[in-house]
């Protein structure tokens, strides 16, 4: 057990700190994703290796060797310094790693640099109204007509579709093949004729997502990542990345600190919420769970450093992290009582309504990115080696045990 990062890393930490101190003035303050100051900040971060750190220089990254601790120190110091870290989004966090792994040389050269610099914004076209947890049953079709794919169908939960320049999209190209082997991974422009975007207002009252419709959308044949029918394999590596990024325990800790402050300030019948023993006990229960997940996070990090698979410790993060945040945000609402009902323009709103919004948004995250129930299937089948769901084949139930 060694919780220190060691002297070399502490030197690196000092470098990051002084960078932040020296360049704080240039950080964009609440500017949009495409604002010039946002793009300039992103460029500066890449130059210093604080964004796109391990992406090769030839594709517009910083080109450093992968070093998990340095990546973590950067994240810690940017959070501590309260300056925005490098751009995220589905293009940078999901598509770029996939292209590096699976893309052709021409695709890497065309897409990675502008994506990293924030000039090319992406959205993800995976889920469909009829293909949620059973994503591989997706039906949006692409048929080759000469040198072009012709796409028809509908996607849902396409966040940022309204601002995206491009989409990475799963489509069925081999209708006769078994469902996992009939999917391809296509890239195309969002201003291609035949694409219609309808905002999807969710329970928070905001259109965080969209529905996207494709009618005879024509896409050049070569805009496919991997071979025909390999799309499921490509998509699966991306889904792994997405799950890892949900349920960050350091963010949960920051929210816990805010919740404690809220409970010290809000009063009911003249009594502070923290002085109510039931609410205080709930706060302590949540604190223990945050502590346990932070420890678990360090364990997973250590395993990565040792090139080991953290197995169950990794598989439970999305399930536990999102459920915990939902409960944490919900405790704030209970602590406020009727004030916890305030929304939008209500003058009694606390903390800009973040508790209400996050309480609902985390219910969305419990469902999105692989529902809690799908997570439990993964944990039990891949983590505990329990039998998979029986499948109907030739009129008979068959059982298989997942490889652990």
């Amino acid at each position, binding site marked *: *057990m060694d919780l220190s990062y060691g002297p070399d890393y502490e030197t690196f930490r000092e470098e990051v700190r002084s960078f932040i101190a020296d360049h704080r003035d240039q950080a964009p303050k609440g500017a949009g994703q495409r604002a010039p100051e946002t793009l300039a900040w992103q460029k500066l971060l890449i130059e210093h290796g604080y964004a796109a750190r391990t992406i090769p220089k030839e594709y517009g990254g910083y080109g450093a060797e992968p070093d998990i601790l340095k990546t973590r120190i950067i994240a810690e110091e940017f959070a501590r310094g309260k300056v925005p870290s490098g751009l995220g989004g589905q293009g940078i966090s999901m598509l770029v790693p996939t292209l590096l792994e699976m893309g052709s040389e021409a695709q890497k050269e065309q897409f990675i640099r502008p994506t990293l610099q924030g000039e090319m914004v992406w959205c993800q076209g995976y889920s469909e109204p009829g293909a949620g947890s059973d994503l591989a049953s997706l039906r949006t079709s692409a048929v080759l007509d000469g040198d072009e794919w012709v796409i028809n169908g509908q996607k849902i939960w396409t966040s940022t579709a309204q601002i995206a320049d491009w989409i990475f999209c799963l489509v069925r190209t081999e209708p006769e093949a078994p469902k996992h082997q009939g999917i391809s991974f296509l890239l195309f422009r969002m201003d291609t004729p035949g694409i219609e975007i309808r905002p999807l207002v969710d329970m928070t009252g905001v259109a965080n997502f969209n529905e996207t419709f494709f009618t005879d959308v024509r896409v050049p044949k070569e805009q496919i990542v991997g071979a025909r029918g390999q799309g499921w394999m490509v998509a699966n590596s991306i889904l792994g990345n997405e799950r890892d990024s949900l349920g960050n325990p350091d963010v949960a800790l920051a929210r816990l600190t805010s919740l404690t402050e809220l409970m010290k300030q809000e009063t009911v019948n003249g009594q502070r919420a923290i002085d109510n023993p039931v609410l205080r006990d709930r706060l302590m229960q949540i604190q223990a769970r945050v502590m346990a997940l932070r420890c*678990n996070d360090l364990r997973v990090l*250590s395993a990565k*450093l040792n090139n080991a698979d953290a197995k169950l410790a990794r598989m439970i993060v999305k399930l536990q992290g999102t459920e915990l945040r939902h409960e944490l945000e919900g405790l704030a609402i209970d602590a406020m009582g009727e004030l916890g009902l305030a929304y939008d323009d209500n003058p009694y709103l606390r903390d800009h309504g973040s508790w209400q919004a996050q309480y609902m948004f985390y219910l969305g995250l419990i469902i999105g990115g692989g529902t809690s129930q799908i997570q439990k299937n993964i*944990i039990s089948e891949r*983590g505990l080696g329990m*039998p998979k769901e029986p499948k109907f084949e030739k009129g008979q139930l068959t059982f298989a045990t997942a490889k652990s």
Partner: protein
Amino acid sequence: MDFGLSEEQTLLQDSVNRYLDENSSLDHVRGYVEAPDSDVWSGLVELGVPGILVTEANGGLSMTALDAAIVAEALGSHTAPAPFLGSAVMAPVALQAAGKNPEDLLGAIVAGEQRVGIAVGETIATRADAGITSSGDSLSGKALFVLDHGADAYLVADTTRSLFLVKADAKGLSNQHLTTIDRTRRTGELVFDNVAAERISDDPTVLQKTLNFGRVMLAADTLGAAQNMLDQAVAYAKEREQFNRPIGSFQAVKHMCAEMAADLEPCRALIWFAAHSLDELPEEATLNACHAKAHLAEVGKKVAKTATEVHGGMGFTDLLGLHYWFKRIGFNRQLLGGPEQVREEAARLQDLVA
């Protein structure tokens, strides 16, 4: 940065588990419950277990709290009948924190010649008019649910949180066995009538440190017991067939197992951290011990119930013996402070209690 067990610690874990697989089987535990006599402890003494937290200067191995937690987890996993918590953990921690070693008691503990029971529960929660008062170095009153009843000596705390050592055969000390749900532990009641005692420490931080160690080890014991129950439930669900399918292929059953695993897995890292902090992060050790104790009490309770349910009717029988783990977890939950009480202590430590 290395958040996990070292190679040596993994070896320690393996060797203790191997020893207990052979010497603390369910049959052995059943035998102990019928006639409380076990040679498990003498074998653990040979492995050096009582010397883990004793310094080399005092004849021990100068190992870490995390090493001790690894042993505690293995003991819980095997519901082993062994006086580990008192003799290997709380007594050595208290004596060494106080800088005391009367009649080389520590050497005798390491050699397996002396066992020390623990009577400090009343400093956390006083029930049924229990509690020890001291007048000079003479103790009066009663202590309940004393750990390792039948030991050679007892570590006793009075109402002012001073610690004393009392020999089991001291004049004026009477005792009786107290049966609890968990027959793998010996507990009793001690009644003191002006009993001469050796004062160990008046420093409340010595008692606090002793409690911290005790709580983390109880939590580690629960981790081991709960992990074993989960493993048994998973194995049973893979084998047991109903409606022509293994019951583990029903989501209703497999999700119960997934929930247990999801709750329990972070506990392992929490125990490692809480144990590590006992040695290395003294300023946060008490808070971490409180949270480890309370959180494992909650997760352990849930796993104990759910794992039993996965076994269906068999889980409820004595034949299967699952109840030994269920009861061990129940015992660990209440001893040295139930979860509500320990969480209140955690809140108080952070100035959250007016």
